[in-house]
């Protein structure tokens, strides 16, 4: 009897906690395509209609920011259908300091220039406003905003707007920001990682390595992978020399 009640309560909590999204239709999830990563996410991929934060690890050099931006671009490209539009919103001041998005550099991520609306906002407050407007519009499927950081209230607003519209929101945390508490469904740390010489780079114009840490995930534990981005696809990197340095659970 008690066991039954407990079970019911647990399932209720899961449902209320947005984490019982594992029952979601496949269309509601953006799969990484790398089984190891998808398996450790409770939803079998990155859920649409939610807020995801991407940043650099604490105390990382500001130049790591570009890696986070690259990883975010890859996810943004995957979260829009071939006919959908996405928004990338930068803060002008941050763009002057840490570089602005360079069109030709978006090529390896499969972001169609016709499907990406760029916005250069004056302040982080405006960036958040643009994100929210984008989430509310039926013409937009995914928004990405660059801000220093996000407090609980602002992140809840975005999370709710994303849930309501089913569009996906990405928050790219600037290098000067601190990782406070917020309501993002998943939070990622990205750092560049040097691919070993033996990696097969043939045929691809650009092969990128990231060390990606999922450090906060509602309904899932933290995990870390070394991934490779090649021809618009993720691969979990497995090399004998590298594998022993990773925690066993995270080796793919």
């Amino acid at each position, binding site marked *: 009897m008690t066991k039954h009640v407990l079970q019911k309560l647990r399932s209720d909590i899961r449902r209320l906690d947005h984490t019982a999204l594992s029952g979601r239709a496949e269309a509601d999830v953006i799969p990484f395509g790398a089984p190891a990563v998808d398996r450790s996410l409770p939803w079998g991929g990155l859920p649409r209609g939610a807020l995801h934060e991407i940043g650099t690890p604490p105390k990382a*050099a*500001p*130049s*790591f*920011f*570009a*890696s986070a*931006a*690259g*990883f975010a*671009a*890859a996810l943004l490209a995957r979260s829009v259908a071939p006919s959908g*539009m996405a928004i990338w919103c930068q803060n*002008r001041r941050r*763009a*002057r300091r*840490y*570089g*602005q*998005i*360079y*069109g*030709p*550099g*978006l*090529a*390896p*991520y499969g972001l*169609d*220039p*016709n499907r*990406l*609306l*760029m*916005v*250069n*906002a*004056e302040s982080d407050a*405006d960036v958040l*406003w*643009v994100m929210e*407007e*984008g989430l509310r*519009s*039926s*013409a*937009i499927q995914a928004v990405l905003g660059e801000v220093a950081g996000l407090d609980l209230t602002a992140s809840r607003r975005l999370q709710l707007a994303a849930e309501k*519209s*089913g569009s996906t929101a990405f928050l790219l945390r600037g290098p000067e920001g601190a990782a406070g508490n917020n309501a993002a469904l998943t939070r990622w740390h990205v*750092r*560049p*990682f*040097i691919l070993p010489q033996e990696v097969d780079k043939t045929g691809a*114009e*650009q092969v*990128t*390595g990231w*060390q990606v840490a999922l450090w906060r995930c509602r309904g899932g534990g933290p995990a870390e992978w070394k991934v490779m981005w090649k021809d618009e696809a993720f691969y979990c990197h497995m090399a004998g020399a590298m594998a022993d340095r990773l925690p066993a659970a995270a080796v793919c």
Partner: protein
Amino acid sequence: MTLANARAMVPNLAVAPATPERDEDRRRMLADWCGRFSPWCALDDGDGIRLEITGVAHLFGGEEKMLSLMLAKFQKMRITAQFGLTDTPAVAWAAARFAGQEIMIVPPGAGTAFMADLPVRALRLDEKTVAGLEKVGLRKVSDLYDLPRAPLELRFGRQLLSRLDQVSGQEAEPISPLRPAAAFRTRLSWPDPIGLLSDIEAAADELAVALCRQLERHGKGARRLELALYRADGEVIHITFGTSAPSRDARHMIRLLGEKLPDIDIGFGVDAMIFSALETAPQQMHQSGFVSMQKAEASGSAADGQQAFSQLVDRLASRIGAGHVFRLVPFDSHDPERAFAVVPAMTPPVNGRWPARQPRPVRLLPVPERMKMMFEGPRPARYAWRQEEGGVSALEGPERISPEWWRLALETRDYFRLEAASGQRFWIFAAPSVRGAKPLRDQQWYMHGFFG
């Protein structure tokens, strides 16, 4: 009379210097303010304001009522004004100045008779002509009516005849309004000024709906809109905004306006508002209303999606600035700073993939920055840029990028991909002053971009 003489006669005379420029500004402002009565307002010769009120008098209950209303408004602003109204501007000009009463309405066709007893000055002539006419005893306008035209022209110039013809209406005198008159406009006015933002918003709402109805009847959509708020103290606030695609969706207009309304200074209140479509473009009949009802449904047709997109672009542009909402599209240039073009958000789709040439960074510094490269022998060992410093894991290159030959001011650059020991990938260049003459270690290095 000199100022000294005047002071001797009236000891406590108030004296202020003449400020013709300010008077002129004020007159221009007043003319603008008269836009609430008619879209065709202009500065008159001399010291007046001219309005074309054909087809608008009925809005105010007829010509007489309109003029009394204007008079009352001017008196409230403590401006002494005289009004003349008739079918030709030349007679109206004289009626306002020489009738000796506040409101003078000359019936159509009676202009010549009205002018007959007025002095020749009432013909809007320059001082020299007036003096010349008076010298030969021609003092009243009627003195000129029956004189032969040729000698008059010979002696006093073309202007005199022209004025006479303008009085009789034989020569037209078109008005050139201060502001272009919009084909579609709606107006609201109140006997007492309103000052609450919510009232103004409600009024704007009403105006927008009425304007959209007008546009719909003519199959048009607005591209540029203007809301004019007529303040009780005689100032006019113009709020102009554009849409990226023709629109006659009142809700959309109000949302765009909503960004700007809270910033305006209402002063002592507003007693008239005019909402006009300054520029329009054809728009198919079915869209308005129908689409806005369906907007909630994400799965609309392509046209609905296009409309939702253009409305979003308008919203973003009105707060962020139109120049900051854009798309990046490929542009065929080897110069990295010109390898893309910034185009307005609503530009039709381009043939779109980024050229897959050499790897390019995802972020580019607006201005390349000096950095240091340290070599151990011929091999690059360490780099330093801003506060960052680290070992070099690999240096790939060079990729020589020369500017197009017609852009001589730019130097040739040798770009390298620098992989730091901690994993970052930088796009850096050296600027060889003489082609390949110096070894890498002696060159100046610049940081330009960051790979993803």
